[in-house]
């Protein structure tokens, strides 16, 4: 089970990007199923989903369940009950249940915008049943970076610090100069993370998602956990 956690401030574009990654993964899976077994009409993903997305309910962009069901995704929603709690425990319970029952190849988790994806990964690693490393992708809103770094510096910087990959999103809304500044700043906070500029409202090249998923190992040789 490959796990990717998407973090990043409220409205940064997490859901939009998750949807793009999801359709990339589904298409890749379809191709692989066809290549491996031309005869088999019933794809295996119809029984158990290839990909599960865990969403927090609060969010500007909802995920359209109709599109998803047809494509081998399944979406789970997580409920907080409180404005401040960060849900890591419920997430672990849900993830363990998914690992036992659905056994998907991929799980994508969207954090609330005020959560630290690294803390959530810590809880999952401590109590989770999965054994693969968790990848953390932090989405940064290029247009709002300057504002948020001034208003909530600890939050946005820590979200960046914990990331394996930082997606600098909404580059359609910011000047190149601003984007470069944001990128420099992000580099100074987390030099080792891969940084990728993109726009969640446009087309995202497959190379971005190959980079993020390929590094996880099992996307080519599909191994069951």
């Amino acid at each position, binding site marked *: 089970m490959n796990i990717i956690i998407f973090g990043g401030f409220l409205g940064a574009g997490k859901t939009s990007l998750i949807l793009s990654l999801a359709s990339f993964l589904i298409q890749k899976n379809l191709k692989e199923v066809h290549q491996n077994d031309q005869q088999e009409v019933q794809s295996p993903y119809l029984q158990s989903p290839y990909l599960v997305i865990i969403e927090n309910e609060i969010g500007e962009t909802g995920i359209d369940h109709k599109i998803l069901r047809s494509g081998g995704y399944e979406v789970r929603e997580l409920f907080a009950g409180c404005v401040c*709690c960060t849900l890591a425990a419920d997430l*672990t319970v849900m993830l363990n249940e998914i690992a036992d029952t659905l056994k998907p190849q991929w799980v994508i988790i969207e954090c609330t915008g005020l959560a630290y994806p690294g803390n959530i990964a810590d809880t999952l690693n401590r109590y989770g049943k999965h054994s693969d490393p968790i990848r953390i992708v932090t989405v940064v809103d290029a247009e709002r970076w300057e504002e948020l770094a001034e208003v*909530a510096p600890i939050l946005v910087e820590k979200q960046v610090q914990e990331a394996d990959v930082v997606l600098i999103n909404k580059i359609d809304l910011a000047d190149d100069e601003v984007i470069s500044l944001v990128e420099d700043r992000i580099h100074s906070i987390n030099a080792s993370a891969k940084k990728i500029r993109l726009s969640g409202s446009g087309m995202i090249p497959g190379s971005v998602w190959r980079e993020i998923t390929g590094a996880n190992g099992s996307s080519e040789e599909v191994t069951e956990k």
Partner: protein
Amino acid sequence: MKTNQELLQERTERFTKTLALEKTDRTPIILMIDGFCAVHTGVKLSEFCSSVKRSSEVMLDSVKQLGDVDGVTSAFAVGPIFPMIFMAKVKVPGRELPDNMLWQLDEAEMMTPEDYDTIINKGWSNFMPSYLKNRLGFDFEGALEQLAYAPQAIQNFNDAGYLVYSPLVTITVNEYLSGGRSMSKFMRDLFKMPDKVEAALEVIQKENLEQLRQQIRAIKPQVVFVSPARGASEFYSPKLWERFVWKYIKETADMIIEEGVVCDIHCDGNWERDLDYFKAFPKGKAVFECDGATDIYKIKEKLGDRLCIKGDVPAGLMVLGTPDEVYDFCTKRIQDMGYGYILSNGCTLPANAKLENVKAMIAAATGK
């Protein structure tokens, strides 16, 4: 066997001494619970949320089964009335959600920047009720009617021998706006029009303090619960935190203390950067309530000679840990914190916490 009245007296004494950082026979344990009680007693969450009265009955049932706890934070579930606290919609089981799903705050931009002007010009009490009714579709009168049961709910707990930690609850005023505007938009407002936001907050604060003072005088609680729900240091730069969070915590706490009541400050999230500010409170007059995100040892080091500390048992541990882990964690806290510490959940005990873990937590405090 002790009567309920004797138990209540014993627990109240232990609690009162702890607030004052005085020596006690043992560390008091106060549970912050709601949805857990429904799961524990096999009541559907939809039924649990149907009224203040019903949630309170279920909670009392659950607590009686749990045994020797000193008290509970609240005598009923506040989830269904979240709109009154956060100025945002809430999805409730049995209404918007399946019967057994926990309530969920549904935050969106429901308040507009123009509303700041309305609040400034007409006052909060001329804005808020109609906002709740018309914009959020919240049954404000109905909620007030239900809340009229609160004193009886508290009485029922007392009659059963349990104290109710904070019969009176308030929120720092910035939370009204960050909930109503949505946290994301509110932060943009702080960046783009801080003066306007501040002007609105001043109006709300003034009315809020006056109302709270009247309530304190009417109810005469031992503790008032102040929630700066998302006021943690990590969500604000130092300058903004001081101006938009601390100022209102301080003013509210000062008034509560002035009325002779202890102020509980519910500090969810990480407050480490700003712990020194809390030295402003006189000894034994405030409680620092933490949820595991702020290092409790740092709180103890900086504020331990001044403030009572409450909480810290992490939600995750109660759901995912084993009873032994919970017992060891709580025992260590009790030993390390000494007097002036109330064993409690860091924020609400999750509905899916394991019953054995709750029992282990109680055992750590009672030594039974």
